[in-house]
């Protein structure tokens, strides 16, 4: 009985002694914390996506105060957040750049695009890519194992029932993580306000593409002919859109024989 009492007393005494000692030292060594850092952190979206180039929202808030970082780097927050931070700091903020989204420029699921071998390894694009450039015949297309989907902090990348992956426009916060993780580089920036984008990334010749993919761009330039003002450019047998050109593009959308020109504004499944 006495042993229990002594144990209780000695450990309790030790704990209290160390606790009080630490508290005293903590007060003595207290760091001055800048209130503004936590206030700015509260203004940021808190996605911790890293698109500003800092480790997270807290690190970015710290950099704005202590390292004079540009307050307009937050892409998810966009102009609104940049303005709020500017107002808080009392500086004018120059928010450059229009809102953009990442889009996966390929609709070649394994149904539509031929494969050259059966891959049964780790379900990750970066594991698949080094093995003969992926299991698809097309070496430019989306590998479809969803590495981008797993890093997306806002859940904007979803899988269509056909098997391909695509980005929901209004959920994308343009953090750019998917671009970094994609080993193929099939994800590209598209202006948020844009109407159409070309959902193919293959630079193979039209005849080649025809053999292995049902939805790949063959560089036939029908889009160019149907919408001459639409800013369609054919380069390396692949169409792309120059968004500076604002002419109508509806004819091209309707006429594309491969159905690889698609609307940007996909907001739900």
């Amino acid at each position, binding site marked *: 009985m006495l042993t229990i009492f002594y144990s209780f007393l000695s*450990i309790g005494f*030790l704990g209290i002694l*160390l606790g009080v000692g*630490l508290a005293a030292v903590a007060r003595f*060594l207290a760091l001055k914390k800048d209130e503004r850092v936590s206030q700015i952190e509260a203004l940021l979206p808190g996605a911790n996506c890293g698109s500003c180039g800092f480790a997270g929202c807290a690190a970015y808030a710290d950099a704005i105060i202590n390292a004079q970082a540009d307050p307009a780097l937050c892409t998810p927050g966009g102009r609104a957040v940049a303005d709020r931070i500017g107002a808080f700091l009392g500086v004018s903020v120059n928010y450059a750049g229009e809102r953009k989204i990442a889009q996966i420029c390929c609709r070649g699921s394994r149904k539509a695009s031929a494969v050259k071998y059966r891959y049964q390894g780790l379900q990750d694009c970066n594991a698949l890519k080094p093995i003969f450039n992926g299991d698809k015949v097309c070496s430019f297309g989306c590998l479809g194992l969803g590495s981008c989907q797993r890093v997306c902090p806002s859940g904007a990348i979803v899988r269509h029932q056909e098997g391909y992956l695509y980005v929901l426009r209004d959920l994308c916060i343009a953090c750019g993580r998917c671009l970094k993780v994609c080993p193929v580089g099939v994800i590209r920036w598209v202006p948020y306000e844009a109407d159409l984008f070309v959902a193919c990334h293959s630079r193979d010749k039209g005849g080649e593409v025809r053999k292995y993919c049902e939805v790949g761009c063959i560089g036939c330039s029908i889009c160019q002919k149907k919408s001459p003002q639409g800013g369609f450019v054919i380069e390396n047998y692949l169409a792309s859109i120059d968004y500076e050109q604002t002419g109508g593009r509806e004819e091209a959308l309707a006429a594309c024989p491969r159905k690889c020109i698609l609307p940007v504004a996909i907001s739900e499944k």
Partner: protein
Amino acid sequence: MSYVGIIITFVFINNFILTQFLGLCPFIGVSKNVESAVGMGFAVTFVTSLASLVTWMIQHFILVPLGLEFLQTISFILVIAALVQLVEMVIQKISPPLYKALGIYLPLITTNCAVLGIALIAVRSNYDPLESFVAGLAAGLGFLLAIFLMSNIREKLDGEWIPGPFRGVPIAFITAGLMALGFMAFDRALLNNLLG
């Protein structure tokens, strides 16, 4: 045993990392560059030397007189945790970059078995307070030596071509294994030869 004997024992013969395999987590985690490795080494040295002194006092002034030796582990850990907390606050105050570089490994010294290990070994070897302190210091210096060598090797390895599957942690483990083999050269015979 003389102080020199204790130092040689814990730095070389019973090196905590390379012979006893205690405290491997920061050894791999913080050995990527020399600067933070040395910082970690000194933090551990500080904690081990103070901890073995304080735990000696606890053992001989509190636990033994009251017959409470079974409370060794919990009371030692309590002291070690408080010391680590102290080190953490001091480092955060005097060197924020080092604090950032050490990251999670700094509070993890609390559960570093090398620290508890030296405290228990010192008590079990019936050292007097000064011997305990020297043993703790030597154990810390042994850790510092191991992590310093390791970080230098890893910095060199960064510039070498290493086959893909071995890059990063795997080659670090292989290196650590080879270093441990090297440290097998130090054994009791060395002590006898040096000190007669």
